[in-house]
């Protein structure tokens, strides 16, 4: 009875670990949840049945891989990649199994060797966590990589605890301790995943709120510009009359001055940027307006196609984050300056943001070190670097005597 209970429970937790593994390597479509659940049950029943019927390791391995392949059918990816992933999981599982057995054999008798399965699950979980850190680092929104290292301590400690449990006397307490440790490890992983998703959602919310503010700002500027245009049209006859009068008097200088003033009514000093793409313009203009409110002198040179083939959302996150950091730093400097350059050439989008700063700033390995870097610059810059890397681009951070420089390039198309 104990054997079957431990077997089923361990297989259940093993299944969760396998799904974590598959999620690390492949992309899951949320619409396939029901299919995945059905195939998971098939795996549970199939592996258990084959093991009980045949007790042949090769047959077990083959069944394991086949049924994992079935679960992986609800994930995106080529068949060969899925097969490779399933083989890797199976091999890792077999290795963990052997290690668990070797470690527990001094304590467990022939009749309760099955307790080593719990240790197998925990070992596999540790490996999965380590792989996840390596594979998923650098993908968007996964900004808590270092915290994952801490969380990986859970399954490691669980492994230690389980090892101790196997040394306990046989009985119900050993069974309960075994199940509890497995449960704690798995729950910690689920909790972490939820936290990471929530953090990602929170960051998205912040960006969305900022975009909404930027849109409101841009709408206001458009409204002001429309009103000026209407007034100009209304007063056009008067202006032409004035210019005609000055021309008859031969007052060329005064005509130029008059026309210059007229032209200035159209140029809204708040609208510095016109890329042709509404979201980008509204975001950058909103942030540059913020910069001006901090008495920061801003120079812009933006020449990019209005129909550039790059994810606008990601571009706005990149530029928005870098600009926000630049404004925050320049606002504290004695000489407040920001230089923003965005250009497109030979299929590459180039970007450079330079800002003055106050106080010592150290840059090491593309990361900013310093008191405030942990919470503000750290996360923002990290997101930007992840996003740029995701698009096969590069982002460099450097410091000169005068400027903090963030510059990057993204190949487009």
């Amino acid at each position, binding site marked *: 009875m104990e054997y079957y209970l431990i077997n089923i429970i361990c297989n259940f937790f093993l299944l969760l670990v396998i799904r974590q593994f598959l999620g690390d390597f492949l992309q899951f479509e949320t619409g396939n949840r029901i299919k995945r659940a059905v195939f998971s049950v098939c795996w549970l029943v199939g592996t258990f049945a084959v093991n009980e019927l045949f007790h042949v390791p090769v047959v077990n391995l083959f069944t394991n891989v086949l049924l994992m392949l079935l679960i992986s059918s609800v994930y995106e990816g080529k068949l060969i990649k899925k097969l490779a992933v399933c083989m890797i999981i199976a091999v890792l599982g077999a290795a963990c199994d052997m290690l668990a057995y070797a470690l527990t054999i001094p304590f467990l008798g022939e009749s309760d060797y099955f307790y080593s399965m719990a240790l197998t699950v925990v070992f596999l979980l540790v490996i999965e966590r380590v792989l996840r850190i390596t594979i998923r680092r650098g993908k968007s929104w996964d900004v808590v990589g270092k915290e994952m290292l801490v969380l990986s301590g859970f399954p490691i400690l669980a492994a230690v605890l389980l090892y101790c449990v196997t040394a306990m006397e046989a009985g119900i307490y050993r069974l309960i301790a075994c199940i509890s440790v497995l449960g704690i490890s798995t729950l910690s992983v689920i909790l972490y995943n939820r936290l990471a998703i929530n953090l990602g959602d929170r960051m998205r919310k912040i960006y969305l709120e900022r975009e909404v503010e930027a849109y409101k700002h841009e709408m206001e500027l458009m409204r002001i510009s429309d009103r000026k245009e209407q007034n100009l049209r209304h007063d056009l006859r008067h202006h032409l009359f004035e210019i005609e009068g000055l021309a008859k008097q031969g007052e060329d200088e005064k005509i130029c001055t008059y026309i210059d003033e007229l032209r200035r009514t159209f140029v809204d000093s708040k609208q510095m940027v016109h890329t042709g793409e509404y979201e980008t313009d509204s975001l950058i203009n909103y942030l540059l307006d913020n910069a001006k409110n901090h008495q920061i002198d801003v120079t812009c040179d933006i*020449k*990019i*196609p*209005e129909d550039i083939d790059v994810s606008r959302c990601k571009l706005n996150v990149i530029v928005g984050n870098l600009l926000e950091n630049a404004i925050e730093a320049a606002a504290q400097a004695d000489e407040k300056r920001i230089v923003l350059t965005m250009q497109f050439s030979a*299929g590459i989008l180039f970007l450079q943001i330079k800002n003055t700063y106050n106080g010592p700033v150290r840059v090491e390995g593309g990361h900013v070190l310093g008191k405030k870097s942990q919470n503000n610059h750290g996360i923002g810059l990290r997101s930007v670097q992840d996003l740029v890397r995701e698009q096969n681009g590069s982002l460099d951070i450097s410091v000169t005597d005068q400027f903090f420089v963030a*510059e990057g*390039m993204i*190949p487009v*198309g």
Partner: protein
Amino acid sequence: MNTYKVAICDDESLTCQEIEKILIENSQQIGAKFHAEIFYTGEALIESIRCGSSYDFLILDIELARMSGIDVGKFLREKNRNFHTQIIYVSSKETYAMKLFSVQPLDFLVKPITEESLFKALKRGFEIIGESEDYFFCNVKRENITISCKDILYLSSNKRIISVVCRDETIEYYGKLSEEMKQLPDYFVQIHNSYAINLNALKKSGTDYVIMNNDEQISVSRKYADSFKDKIFSRWKKMCCEG
């Protein structure tokens, strides 16, 4: 002081005169002399180019009466296969369609054109034009050949045979690519064990490939990917951000 030939093309005669005035009155300040020709239509400029006129710079309005500035740019690059003449687009608009970038313009200026913005663009052009006075020397069948670097698109190597692919011809001789790289200027960059390209002849760069001005696609190997990216980036910074 170098002298540069400039074609100014705009259907507004006042704009043409204004640009010509800036070029002539400020030649001392910018350190160069200009010989300017004015055209009021794209067709007239194209006809001049067809008749053999060549220019260092085209200052070109985007919105012309019939033939647009884009059409003139396309004629220059695609029909005339001229990638040396630097195109500076001028416009009343501040937004630019992707098709404008396909002719590899040097810069975009918004009207009314200021001296500062025009000089900044011209100075970048001087750097690129100055680079085209570099020469590459090789020995083909015991004959010394001199090739202007501005004509070279890329070099390829196949079993010790170097092919220097130029705009109109390909020259082959025995040699080692790594040795040849030593005599090439710094805007030549190796992107593959067998390929070194001229960055001035680069039409488009993708994640792991480049397309040259003759529309040939060449792969960028992983070994050289990082150094290639660094080279492109530092070149852009030098041209656009410094000075």
